[in-house]
């Protein structure tokens, strides 16, 4: 930026800051809302504007670093992007207004001056938007990771018996995870029986059915048995309508019945104790 413009901004620093603070106050009640104490707003506003003006003195990399640190902190505490975009809009109009009314602007150079200010402000806005989208992508990445971990867990409920409760929509990626987790889990938990519970799957179409059939076959190939449980009545009807043959699969209507069958297949059963604590239940066999 031209030294003369920097000089001018410095000379008018207080005027610019005061004007901007006034403008941002109206913007703020619209964007940030009232959940932040007013003093905190004012303090943040002042720090923000001073930091923006101070970046003129740093070399570019350093300026970017300062801005990044500041923006990241605000993103972290949940400030909306619109605070920055509206704030920078106000900043630009305050600057341009100051420049055009102020003494010392050579009218021949007014376009040049405006152009430089626009470029400077645009650069800052772009960087802020980048910081925001970066943090969103980061969040989405983390959530996707969390979702993947949740999406097809194999849970060992008894020795030799594991359950995979499926809840929600099954897409291609998740179908892959079902297969991977089931095969890894069988080895890890030494499962002999795997119960796949589809109570929470809203729609069983041909793709979902196909993946379940394939998972069941793979389970059999590694020497375990698969029981499909939790087929709701309306799902049973649509499966029949689709003409899908689940005849080769063992099915039980509820998870409890599935577990009982699993215990039986591993030569165990649940019995009542004949001791004082008559209500307690253990596994015998």
């Amino acid at each position, binding site marked *: 930026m031209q030294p003369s413009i920097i000089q001018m901004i410095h000379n008018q620093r207080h005027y610019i800051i005061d004007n901007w603070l006034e403008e941002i106050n109206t913007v703020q009640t619209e964007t940030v809302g009232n959940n932040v104490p007013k003093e905190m707003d004012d303090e943040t506003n002042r720090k923000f504007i001073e930091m923006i003006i101070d970046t003129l003195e740093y070399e570019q990399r350093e300026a970017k670093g300062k801005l990044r640190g500041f923006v990241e902190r605000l993103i972290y505490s949940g400030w909306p992007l619109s605070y920055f975009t509206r704030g920078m809009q106000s900043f630009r109009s305050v600057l341009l207004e100051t420049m055009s009314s102020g003494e010392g602007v050579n009218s021949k150079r007014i376009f040049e001056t405006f152009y430089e200010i626009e470029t400077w402000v645009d650069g800052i806005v772009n960087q802020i938007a980048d910081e925001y989208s970066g943090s969103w992508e980061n969040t989405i990445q983390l959530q996707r990771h969390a979702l993947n971990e949740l999406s097809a867990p194999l849970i060992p409920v008894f020795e030799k018996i594991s359950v995979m409760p499926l809840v929600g*929509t099954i*897409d*291609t990626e998740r179908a892959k995870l079902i297969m991977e987790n089931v095969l890894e889990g069988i080895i890890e938990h030494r499962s002999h029986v795997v119960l796949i519970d589809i109570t929470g799957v*809203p*729609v*069983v*179409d*041909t*793709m979902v*059915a*196909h993946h379940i059939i394939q998972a069941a076959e793979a389970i059999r190939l590694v020497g375990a048995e698969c029981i499909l449980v939790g087929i709701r*009545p*309306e*799902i049973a*009807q*649509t499966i029949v*309508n*689709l*003409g*899908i043959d689940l005849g080769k699969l063992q099915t039980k209507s509820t998870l409890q019945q599935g577990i009982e069958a699993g215990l039986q297949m591993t030569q165990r059963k649940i019995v009542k104790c004949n001791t004082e604590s008559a209500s307690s239940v253990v596994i015998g066999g």
Partner: protein
Amino acid sequence: MGIQSNVEVQTEWGIVSARQAGRNLAKEAGFSSVDQARIATAISELARNIYLYANNGEIIIEFLENENVSPPRRGIKITARDEGPGIDNIRNAMEDGYTTSGGLGAGLPGVKRLMDEFDIDSRSGVGTEITAIKWLR
């Protein structure tokens, strides 16, 4: 005539939102939970075929009301439309077990059984339009 919703199918999320729209409309129209599941499943099949074979297209779900017959008939109509490669041999495609993608080959014949009316119009290199209706009983 009445409420209608259009869903673009470009990703697997399109499939999910199409059947969600269908289920909502079916519920509003007063379909039983079994029929709601049938309608959602039919939409899922048609939308997935679009996603798999045509890359993109749209699903239109409409509420039908015919006052000119007595008693008045009401129902839900699904239209699946794409400008994909089309289906070379419709007779084959409608057969149970016929698949070109290593699937179960149960989608299209299944949709026909899930719904009350079924119509398919497809031309090689032009695209495919499938309509299916479920009447309220």
